[in-house]
Structure formats: C-alpha cells, structure tokens
C-alpha cells in the first residue's frame, strides 16, 4: 500500500513538473475572448506523435528530434474584440510565477503606455540545459502565452522555421537561422 502511495506521489510530482507554470488563471478569459486557442500536449502525447513520424523524411525528422526531450507544450491565445479585456493583474500573476527559482527573464519589453505591446521571453535552466521556455505576448486585443517544458534546444525549434506549414521565424536571442543553400 505504501509503495502505491509513493508511486502516486512521484507520478503527481512528475506531472506537476511537466508543466512549467500554472495557466489555469487564464481560464476565465475564455468567456471574454472572441477567439481562443488552447493547446495542451503532455509528454505521452508528444512521444506518441514522435513515434508516428517518419525519421527518413527530413521535415518530420527535425520535428521528431525536437520532440525527443520535450515533456509538455501548452499554448493559450485569446483574441478580443476590443481593448482592455484582460487586466494587468491577470498577467502579473503569471509574471510572479516566472520570478521563481530557476527562471530568468531573457527579454522583457514593458511599456506603461495605453495600447502598447508588451512582451517577454523567460527561460528556466538547469546547468547548461534549457528546461523551460515561456513566451508572453501582450497586445491590446490579444494575449498569448506559450509554455514549453523539457529539454529545449532552440536550434531545433529554429530548424522548423519555414517547414511543415510553419512560417519563417527567427528564434533569435543568440540562435542563428539555418543557412539557406544558394540556388544553382
């Protein structure tokens, strides 16, 4: 019996660790948003997806490589019809979580001006390994939070740029985009 309790406790701890931050605080925004995107991908789902990817297909191989170390991907995007539908307090609760142990702010764009865009990138590191990444984008009519946990290699995320329907992007922050081969 004690063993089962221990196993349950370890599983619960692992599940809690799989998600970097608690995004439930944004649940009440759903009712105010005109459009909501909610993505919750746990470690078993990511591994399942990786298992069905073709390692010989270069496009899928990149995605598969990226999935190898991930333990969770959680996204919340709320689009609003008008400005001022979410409060600073709701966002600050998230920022407070991101001031916890292990987290550091990589980029912080903050403007007190009304209607200005605010943004932030936060990373959690263990040794030299990045184990958590949160991207926060606050626009007047849109709020987006991306929470990726696990062993994160930004070069692998960058490698997906422009592939599999993903538009070109620059992960930046010290990550170089893969060089494009010159057309002969």
């Amino acid at each position: 019996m004690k063993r089962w309790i221990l196993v349950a406790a370890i599983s619960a701890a692992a599940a809690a660790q799989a998600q970097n931050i608690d995004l439930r605080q944004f649940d009440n925004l759903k009712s105010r948003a005109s459009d909501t995107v909610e993505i919750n991908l746990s470690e078993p789902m990511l591994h399942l997806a990786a298992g069905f990817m073709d390692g010989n297909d270069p496009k899928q191989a990149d995605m598969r490589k990226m999935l190898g170390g991930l333990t969770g991907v959680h996204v919340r995007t709320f689009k609003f019809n008008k400005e001022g539908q979410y409060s600073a307090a709701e966002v600050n609760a998230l920022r407070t979580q991101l001031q916890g142990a292990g987290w550091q702010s990589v980029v912080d764009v903050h403007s007190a001006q009304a209607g200005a865009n605010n943004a932030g990138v936060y990373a959690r590191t263990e040794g030299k390994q990045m184990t958590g990444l949160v991207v926060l984008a606050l626009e007047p009519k849109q709020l987006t939070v991306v929470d990726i946990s696990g062993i994160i290699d930004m070069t692998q995320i960058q490698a997906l740029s422009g592939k599999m329907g993903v538009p070109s992007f620059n992960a930046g922050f010290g990550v170089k985009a893969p060089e494009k081969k010159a057309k002969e």
Partner: protein
Amino acid sequence: MNDVERELRGAFQRRQPSAGFADRVGEAVRRGRSRKRERQRWMAMAAAVVVLCGLGGGYWQMRREARRTVDQLNLAVRITGEKLNFVREAAARGLLEKNLAEKGFAEENVGENNVGEKE
C-alpha cells in the same frame, strides 16, 4: 404370468444389435468429436478476428491521436514562431524608441517605455 409381466419380459429381453452397430456408434462418436473440434476451430478464428480488429482499431485510434497531436504541435510551433518574431520586433522598437528618447527625439511617442534584453 399376466399380460403385463409378459410384456415386461419381452421388453427387457436381451437382443443382439444389428450388424455394424459398433461401427455406427464409433462413427457417431468420431463425428461428434470432429464437430466439436471444428466448432473450437471456428471459435478460435472468431477470437483471432476480434483480437486483430481490436488491435487494428487501437492502432488506428493511436494513429489518429498522433496526427491530431502533430497538427496541434504545428500550430503551437507556428504561434511560438510568430510570437518570438513579435517579441524581437517589440524589443527592437523599444530599443529604438529608447535611443531616440535619449537623444531627445520623438519624446511624445516614447512614453515610459522600458526595455531590457539580456544575452
């Protein structure tokens, strides 16, 4: 001896079975066993079909789940990419506005912008 006794005696009288009776009995037993074996074979085949259908259905379900996950993952990566671009642009704009403000330009557009980028 009355009629009833006579009838009973007649009924219980030992008679020799007709010729080939033992063969017929043996054949019937064999046929019964063979039918049972055949029924078992059909049952096993039916069970195998059910198991195979179950496995196939499970695999199909897993594949569908995996596809859905890949679609969601693509969307997540797309949103992440878009938002990383957004953060870069916001940071660049903030730095530009900060520089302009420091040089005394466009102060009305600068406001209280506060940008920090850490390497």
